């Protein structure tokens, strides 16, 4: 009987620890993904700005052909 109780307690502890770890890992992943998305968003913004300015420049250069 004592063996069963010991085994049960051991499994319970392992279960609780693994569940806590998983939750922690999920939290970490969530934070990491948020950071990544923030970086990506910034990069998208910058890329878009550069593309827009490049197009504007191209248009201005086309106007120079009349000179």
């Amino acid at each position: 009987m004592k063996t069963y109780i010991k085994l049960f307690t051991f499994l319970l502890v392992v279960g609780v620890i693994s569940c806590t770890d998983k939750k922690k890992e999920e939290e970490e992943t969530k934070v990491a993904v948020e950071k990544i998305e923030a970086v990506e968003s910034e990069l998208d913004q910058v890329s878009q700005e550069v593309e827009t300015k490049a197009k504007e420049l191209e248009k201005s250069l086309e106007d120079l052909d009349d000179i």
Partner: protein
Amino acid sequence: MKLIKFIIVLTLFFAAGNYNAFAQGKSQQAKEKVAQKKGQAKEKINKGKEKAEEARQKGKEKAEEVREKAKEAKEDLEEEGQERAEEAREKVKEKKKKVEKEVKGNAYGKNKGDLKGKEFGMARVAEAKNKVKEGKEALDKNEGKIQKAHERIEAAKERLARAKEKTGEEALTPEEIAEKEAKIAKAEEKLNGLKESIKKGKQKMKEGKEKLDKVYSEDQ
């Protein structure tokens, strides 16, 4: 008795002559009146014709005006329709982008194959780093445009300088010169704007890469 008869006949004769003369006078008056009335009638007819002509002219003008207005309205409608179509296209484009972003977001956040937890995060970091790499390549590509743009601006400046030296009929007016100089100035301004953006973009790419490198290294 014979004398009385003679007097009566003479009287009758004179009376008849007078009556004839009176009748003739009356007939002349009537004729004049008829001629006058005819003249008036002709005048009236002429006036009527003029009025009809005027009315026809006015009608023509109005019809022309209505046609012009209809044409303008049609053109306005066409223009408006085109604008609306353009707006609708833009909206569809935006919605499509939004949906694509959402789908992509879901893929990033949840369904990365069978990966979960830290593995998923690492895969996501790798993907973002790849994006940074692509962004850098795009910046380099745009940086290549800067040199070409610089050359084109210099060439335009030289062309303008040569054009300024021309005299006679070929000579440029001060307005033309100002217009061309404004175009060059605008191109230079845009070029500087692009240079700034690329510089800023490179800085952001560098910072982004550093942030991505730190995402999991901080925890370890």
